[in-house]
């Protein structure tokens, strides 16, 4: 299946990526080729086949709900690109 520039722009928006016109053109071509290759899977009848999400037979790993040591504020802020009073600063979300 072939995808269009518009498809790529839409997906970029979902993925929070800003593409140049050149990137959009390249990705349209490359993703079309990759998806065309992936159509191969359509040759297989998978009716009734359980999907594998991961290979281990473990589900819902729980632990006791107890208070444990956690990352302190100063540590958590160490790599912050912008901070104010121990909080991550971002552009205004509300007007």
């Amino acid at each position, binding site marked *: 299946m072939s995808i269009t520039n518009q498809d790529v722009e839409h997906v*970029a928006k979902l993925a*929070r990526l800003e*593409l140049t016109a050149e990137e959009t053109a390249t*990705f349209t071509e*490359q993703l079309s080729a990759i998806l065309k290759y992936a159509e191969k899977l359509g040759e297989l009848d998978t009716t009734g086949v359980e999907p*594998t999400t991961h290979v281990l037979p473990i589900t819902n790993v729980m632990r006791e709900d107890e208070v444990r040591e956690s990352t302190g504020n100063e540590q958590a802020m160490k790599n912050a*690109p*912008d901070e104010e009073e121990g909080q991550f600063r971002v552009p205004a979300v509300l007007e």
Partner: protein
Amino acid sequence: MASIFDMRLQDVHNKLRDKEFSVSELVDAAYKRIGGTETDVKAFITLDESGARAEAARLDAQIAEGGELGLLFGLPAGIKDNIVTEGLRTTCASQFLDNFNPIYDATVTKKLKQAQSVTIGKLNMDEFAMGGSNENSSYHATRNPWNLDHVPGGSSGGSAATVAAGQVYFSLGSDTGGSIRQPASYCGVVGLKPTYGLVSRFGLVAFASSLDQIGPITKNVEDAAYVLQAIAGYDELDSTSANVSIPDYVSALSGDVRGLRIGVPKEYLGEGIDSGVKEAVLAALKVYEDLGATWEEVSLPHTEYAVATYYLLASSEASSNLARFDGVRYGVRAENPDNLIDLYRKSRSQGFGPEVKRRIMLGTYALSSGYYDAYYLKAQQVRTLIKRDFDQVFERFDLIMGPTAPTTAFRIGEQIGDPLTMYLNDICTIPVSLAGVPAISVPCGLADGLPVGLQIIGKAFDETTVLRAAHAFEQNTGHHTLRPQL
């Protein structure tokens, strides 16, 4: 060239204890070799010389005091740059994390510290482990020590090249679709991808969580067994960690492979496999015959669907995992965003390289409304069929063998414009990752002067049989003692 790093681990251990040389001298040897070869090889992103020397001094003081030495005591080690190291820059070879200093250690980093190896630095890779050549690093392309015009493979290319170049005693890599085994094959070293769940992923920057596994890259199988011993085991910080008992991997290296039943998938020796690679693998199978094992051709019929399955699943998981890189809490932040969404968008667009963007795009598409069933769910179902292929062969056979990669290391730049061709280099390693079973790549000779890797695949959690067979092969051939001229 004979190197102090060619010495067997037990000998290094004894000589350190007997004070024939010191940990500081081992660390000196590492940086001296790096000084002489790194301009050519470029295996590292970050070197931690002051940290390593301070640690060496501490370990030397410990010897002076006497007492127990850790399993990997004093051994200079390199760590792939997607495994977090407290206070030591960890970039994932991405500009996004150029200034990122982790505030904690990965579980494997902690385990190496307990085993008392010495971290020399952080190794180059394809950005966020996406790629098979190290050309996707946003810092530089690592070069293959056997021929500097060729790639070292990837994504753990730095981890394989540094061991091949004799810069460190061992390294850690990570493998999602072949990222330990393929570069080990290209660089003529040993690379082990453990069973999914055997080694904790806590602190490994996630690419595709249902596939990622950390493992050792070493010069020989015995070293791989020691490093695996040090890093394997249940970890409550990783919810997909397997709670299994850990055997003694080193004592399993008996040299005896009599009676082992080996299945050789015809799909791994068919079309697209280089003749030199095929020849080396068939010669390796002859060695096993001579040692008393038997092999016969088998089929893994869904092999041809594995690459498509993998790229859909791994990219989908990546698109979700990499959503955390938003420019808010760590990493780069774009200047002058219009608003919060624009901040995410600009930071990500400036921070990520082309292959990472391509995979995020593919994954986002495969998971998006209207396409989920056709791509993501379908791929998960085909994954089940691929896993069943392995289950069926393992009902009759102890091991599966074939090449690690269809060719030897290709030239730098040769495939960079063609992502699909690049993806097909992983045809022999991807199915194994999808099935979650363990596999090792061991050197089995040269083709046109470049190393070929034999891939030995085992049942889930049966690393002992994989290591035993790999060890018997190398002890009877000596391919692993070949070194590149640097």
